[in-house]
Each structure stands twice: as C-alpha cells, then as structure tokens.
C-alpha cells in the first residue's frame, strides 16, 4: 500500500493537538521546563526537516514522541532542577513536596516509566505506545501493570 506523504501541515496539525501533552511528558521525565520545551520544539523541527524520509512504518505521533523521549534521556538531564517560570513569577518550585514522587518515579525501570507516561500524558493506545517504545503490543499491558506496582512500592520506600 502506498504511504501518504507527510506534509508540513500534517505535522503542524499534530503539533496543535499534541505539543502541550508532549511538553508535560518531557517535563515529567526531566523536571526541567526549559529542556522540556526545547525537546518538544526541536523534535517537531526534526520531524519537519526529515518528513520526506518518513517511511510510515508507524504513526507520525509515535515517531515524534520517540524524538521527545530521546531528547529527555536520563543521561542528558542536568543535575539541577530549575524552577518553572510563567512570565509573572515562579509557578512551580523545584523543591516541592512532590520530590518524593519524582524520586520514586526515577526508581522504576525506564521502560515501565515511559509506558506509564505515554499512557497517562498522551493517552496513547497500546499499539501507539508499542510503536513509540519499539516493543510488542502485547507487552504494553504487562509493562503498565508492573509500572504501577513498582511505583507503589517505590513510593512506600521513599516516604517511609
């Protein structure tokens, strides 16, 4: 079957409905608003530049989400977590009571964490999650279950 060409307009359409959710995904992974914003913008720019090479072996949403995940890999993240500013002032302090939650999230395996985030922040179905993470669609349900179980255990551990 012939693949439909990816146009700038089709990427813009995805940007309009998905960019904010991708920002939240990147922010949840990085705890760094500037890095999260940059990861989203750069991922869409990359997709725009490389659109002619998109073979359509998965959805465009999955392809762009992979770029965002790649741009917010753990080893690329700064140690310091800056505050989130919203023009008028700080709207989200890095040192919040949710530090426990973030610590617990970082304790679970990366694949489980990403599966959970893709499901929660992007509301992806199992097939799109599988495409994004390069795993079998049948693994997604079990991975989600493991993520929730392990996060509960990790939260118990960090909160005592």
């Amino acid at each position, binding site marked *: 079957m012939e693949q439909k060409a990816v146009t700038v307009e089709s990427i813009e359409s995805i940007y309009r409905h998905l960019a904010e959710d991708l920002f939240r995904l990147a922010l949840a992974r990085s705890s760094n*608003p500037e890095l999260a*914003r940059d990861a989203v913008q750069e991922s869409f720019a990359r997709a725009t530049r490389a659109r002619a090479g998109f073979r359509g072996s998965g959805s465009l949403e999955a392809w762009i989400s992979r770029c965002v995940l790649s741009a917010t890999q753990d080893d690329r993240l700064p140690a310091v977590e800056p505050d989130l500013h919203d023009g008028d002032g700080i709207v989200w302090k890095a040192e919040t009571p*949710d530090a426990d939650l973030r610590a617990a999230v970082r304790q679970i395996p990366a694949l489980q964490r990403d599966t959970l985030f893709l499901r929660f922040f992007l509301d992806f179905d199992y097939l799109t999650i599988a495409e994004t993470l390069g795993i079998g669609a049948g693994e997604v349900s079990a991975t989600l279950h493991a993520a929730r179980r392990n996060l509960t255990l990790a939260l118990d551990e960090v909160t005592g």
Partner: protein
Amino acid sequence: MRFDDEILDRLAPTLGWRSDWVNVLERAGEIDQRRRQPWARRRRILALVGLTALLIALATATEWWLFR
C-alpha cells in the same frame, strides 16, 4: 503515599507551555525556504525571458534563417 495515575499530574503542570509553531519552522529552516522559493522561481523566469530576448535580438541582427 498511595499511587494512582492521577498523581502523575503533579510531575508536570500544564502551566509553562507556550505554543510556538513559527519557532518550529524557524528551527527546521522552513521559513527561510518558503521566503526564498518565490524569488528563486521569479529569477528563473526572468532569466528565461532575458535569454529568449537575447536570442531573438541576435537572430534578427544576424539575419538568421528563421527571421529572414
């Protein structure tokens, strides 16, 4: 602390996101290309018109067979 999916909201507030598609196009180099493309096309047309005029003038001056 009990875990349910909703507490993941705390990891990523929606505040702080500003949509900026123009910035994406700038990063991708699309805006410059779009600005350049019409001019490139016009330059090609002008060059073709100029070349045609030059050939006609040359052919007329040299009494080329087509213009005899």
